[in-house]
């Protein structure tokens, strides 16, 4: 397994958001975590990205015990985050945002090639590369956020609600990109509200409700079970 999480407990201050969650992501795999608002999805993915520390539980990435790794060293191990709400450096230009993605020496060496790859995926960003990222449309900002993650040459990309606040056509594009990221060799852990899209693109999926995993398996099987409906609709 590339990513192995065992019995994670995560929270902010004394507020717990995730209880006893275990999940795996294998190399080259797309794994989706779905669940309604407030289920703890963002908390979970932030802990995998090193932004939050786990209270309890084991987090291993490629055999390395990530609980011993400093937050700013997660990226160096090959983990890159596309955060919820994009969280771009809005005062900096598009290209500067992308360059921040290859801040670490290993990725920096491949800067030119990585930039070409990102501009190849998102040609519009090449035209806008001198503009402050804050001036872009929502969809374009999401492209920058994804591009920034790819610049780090990651082995796993963590997507947090990539479809949030985007127009339906743009949402389709985003999920195409996610598939493409995997085809280029990185594993993907995707956290999404949009159930059908998330299950459609995934190899395997987990259903998170109230900080706990209530179901897991192949997307087709999950759709047949009542868990999703109960979690989202309460009936």
């Amino acid at each position, binding site marked *: 397994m590339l990513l192995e999480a065992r019995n994670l407990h995560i929270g902010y201050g004394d507020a717990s958001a995730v209880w006893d969650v275990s999940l795996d992501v294998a190399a080259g795999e797309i794994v989706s975590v779905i669940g309604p608002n407030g289920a703890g999805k963002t908390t979970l993915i932030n802990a995998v990205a090193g932004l939050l520390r786990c209270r309890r539980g084991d987090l291993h990435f490629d055999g390395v015990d990530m609980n011993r790794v400093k937050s700013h060293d997660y990226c160096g191990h090959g983990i890159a985050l596309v955060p919820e709400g994009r969280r771009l450096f809005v005062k900096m230009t598009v290209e500067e945002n992308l360059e921040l*993605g290859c801040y670490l020496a290993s990725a920096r060496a491949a800067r030119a090639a990585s930039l070409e790859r990102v501009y190849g995926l998102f040609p519009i960003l090449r035209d806008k590369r001198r503009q402050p990222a804050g001036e872009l449309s929502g969809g374009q900002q999401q492209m920058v956020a994804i591009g920034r993650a790819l610049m780090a040459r990651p082995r796993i990309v963590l997507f947090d609600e990539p479809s949030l606040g985007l127009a339906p056509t743009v949402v389709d594009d985003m999920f195409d990109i996610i598939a493409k990221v995997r085809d280029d060799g990185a594993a993907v852990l995707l956290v999404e509200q949009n159930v059908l899209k998330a299950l459609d693109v995934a190899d395997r999926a987990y259903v998170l409700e109230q900080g706990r995993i209530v179901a897991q398996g192949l997307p087709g099987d999950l759709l047949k079970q009542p868990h999703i409906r109960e979690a989202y609709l309460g009936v």
Partner: protein
Amino acid sequence: MPSATLLGQALISGVLAGGLYGLLAMGLSLSWGLLRLVNLSHFALAFLAAYIVYELGTDYHIEPWWSAAMVVPAMFAIGTAQHWLFDRFKVNELGSLLMTFSFAIILEVAIQLYWTADFRRYETEYATRSIKAGPFYIPVLELTLCIVAAVLACGTWVWLRRTYVGKALRAAAEDPDIAAAYGVNHKKLAYLLSGIGAAYAGVAGTFIALIATLAPAQIWTYLGVVFAVVIIGRLGNPIGALLAGMLIGASESLAQAVLSPAWSPVVSFSVLIVILLWDPEWL
């Protein structure tokens, strides 16, 4: 109404004098804008540097430029040491303001104990030189100051824009968590920036030693106007700081020429108040 020549000369002297405001404002602007630390002791550090340059020059006859080469790295070290305290005790913006105010008082006292409260003047041959350009006189020392300030401002600007470290600092100022997620070790970079800010105080101090008459209480004379300059030039923008400094210097000088010398302090603060009320998001 004063003559055009007089006004022109006032403008030139003002811009050149504003160079010092800009130079002093740069270090403050960097630490406030990128680290959210307001460093009142910046002025005291500049004067400490000035006194050391004065001492080395008058007692040991060391050329001010050689003194600067020693003083500036020393100030860098002091800046990082100061940052250790901020870091260790997780001092916030207001806390840093009060704490560095205390540092300033302590430094002022230390200066006064060693050099006394008497006015000190470092007499050098540079002070009297000036270039004549048409009807105007341009003092060489102030011109040098402005050139150095401009080089530093542009250098810092390029450093912040073009290097990875500079970009990382700007990114961390916007969103430290996400910057860390991409490998930026903000804590380490903050030490570097604090050191650089203090080193700029050392550069400013060298020129203060050459241009101004030194007295411990003078530490406070620049405080108000330089803070106005920092805000007008926008936080974290070294070129903005220098241009704002020159703008304020020129306006003060013109106000002196047209109104009366005593009105000049109002200029910078009126500009500041107008800007803050007009656009509270200016910072």
